[in-house]
């Protein structure tokens, strides 16, 4: 069954695919810089009435937690990446490279960019795994 993006069910599935992927275990191993928050901007025309924040707590190749959070809690994490629904959809469909998108301003980053770039393999693996989830996009 396909899962709505974003939703609690989707983030839970994301945690599972990451922790079941030996590739992510290796690619994510060097990452010790803390949790990432992803903010999807509101898009009332497709039913997304408010901004949604979800926190992905990854550490050394393990996803310790993945959950929808309040905006306040999300903003406290060391990396906060914000984008429109369409941009996130392109990332999940592997049409948009998230690191390049950050440098071009399609996604907005609060946090230390060099840390993300150094871990570009971990970032690629995160995307690869997100693309494995059977996702229902709200505009489809």
């Amino acid at each position, binding site marked *: 069954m396909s899962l709505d993006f974003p939703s609690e069910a989707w983030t839970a599935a994301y945690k599972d695919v990451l922790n079941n992927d030996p590739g992510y275990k290796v690619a994510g191993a060097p990452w010790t810089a803390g949790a990432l928050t992803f903010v999807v901007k509101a898009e009332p025309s497709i039913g997304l009435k408010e901004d949604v924040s979800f926190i992905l707590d990854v550490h050394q190749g393990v996803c310790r937690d993945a959950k929808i959070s309040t905006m306040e809690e999300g903003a406290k994490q060391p990396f906060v990446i*914000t984008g429109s629904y369409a941009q996130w959809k392109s990332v999940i469909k592997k049409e948009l490279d998230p*690191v*390049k998108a*950050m*440098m*071009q*301003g399609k*996604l*907005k*980053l*609060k*946090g*230390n*960019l*060099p*840390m993300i*770039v*150094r871990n*570009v*393999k971990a970032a690629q693996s995160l995307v690869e795994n997100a693309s494995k989830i059977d996702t229902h996009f709200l505009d489809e």
Partner: protein
Amino acid sequence: MSYDADLSFVFAHTPKVVFGARAADSVGDLVTELGGQRTVIVTDAFLAGQTDLVKRLGKSLGDRLAGVFSGVIPDPTAPSVDEGAAFARERGADLLISLGGGSAIDTGKAMAVVLTEGGKILEHEGYHALTRRLTPHIAVPTTAGTGSEMTLVTVITDPARGQKTFVGSHFLHPDVALLDPTFTTGMPARLTAATGMDAMSHAVEALISTLRQPLSDAAALQAIELIATHLPRALAQPDDLHARGQMLLAACLAGTAFSNAMVSLNHAMAHSLGALHHVHHGTLNAALLPHTMRFFAADVGDRFTRVASALGGATRGLGDEAAARQAADLMQAFVHRVGLTTRLGELGVPAESLPQVAELSLSDGSIIYSPRPVMDPAEIEALLRQAH
């Protein structure tokens, strides 16, 4: 030289560019246009103490000059920016004029962030996270140059982490880039050559970046031709205002090119070497550039053909890769002609540090735009050994 069918790009060009010999003597008019009443000049101790440049700006500003912050340091650190911002706030600054090389302009950009958004500069690190206009900023380069007067980033060193970090945003573009060749004639030969080759590296790297696009290419190619002709002239005749002016234009064009198309592996290595060994940024870029060009010779299609022509080569009848190799050889000869080295060893970089440099280069933002993906530290180390 053509583009893929699925080309998609953004080209941003915000600063108003004001060019002309002695144009800076009417900086007061630009301040009026921007509504400035209390201007703080941001510069370093040498330019403030040993040249008449601050005095020239001050004459045009009159009583709208609220103070001179002369605490800019090469490769600006976060504490130096915070100190500058505190100074400007204390003087009630409503407009900044940065005067100097890339270090002064980057400090000015970062101070504008802190003045507008509060807090300390490291609280604002990130990309495209700023949301509104900053304190107005006029950038007056005295080197030619980093092109920072045209770009959307400021590079700040965090001494606590021993690492360079960035704030990048369209709001960081200065409002005005004020290019006055009489402000660059005082540059000693070494600085002229090194900053000129920094601009050359920006242009060459923008041309081969995966984000290259027609508008940045046009700027990059024009910059390369101007530098090839006018850098030797500026060195032979330091007070040649025409040559100095053409070099300022080249640096500005190269800045526009790389602010949109970015730089890649050459800069990633230069940033890493700079952080570890404190050698001047442009000197490092010059030393590395011919080697990097050879490294990518098979990956750049026909894009180096015009680089070879600009440097006096004849590529007719050559295949793309052979033409690219010729361009690299000509670039090496050009670096020597302007009095710089293409050997890292001669710059005091110890061979033992190269593995660490290679490792560090992988975490530099620029590296992801390389014309072919570079992810293996061993590959970078081999290139560095060739350049050593």
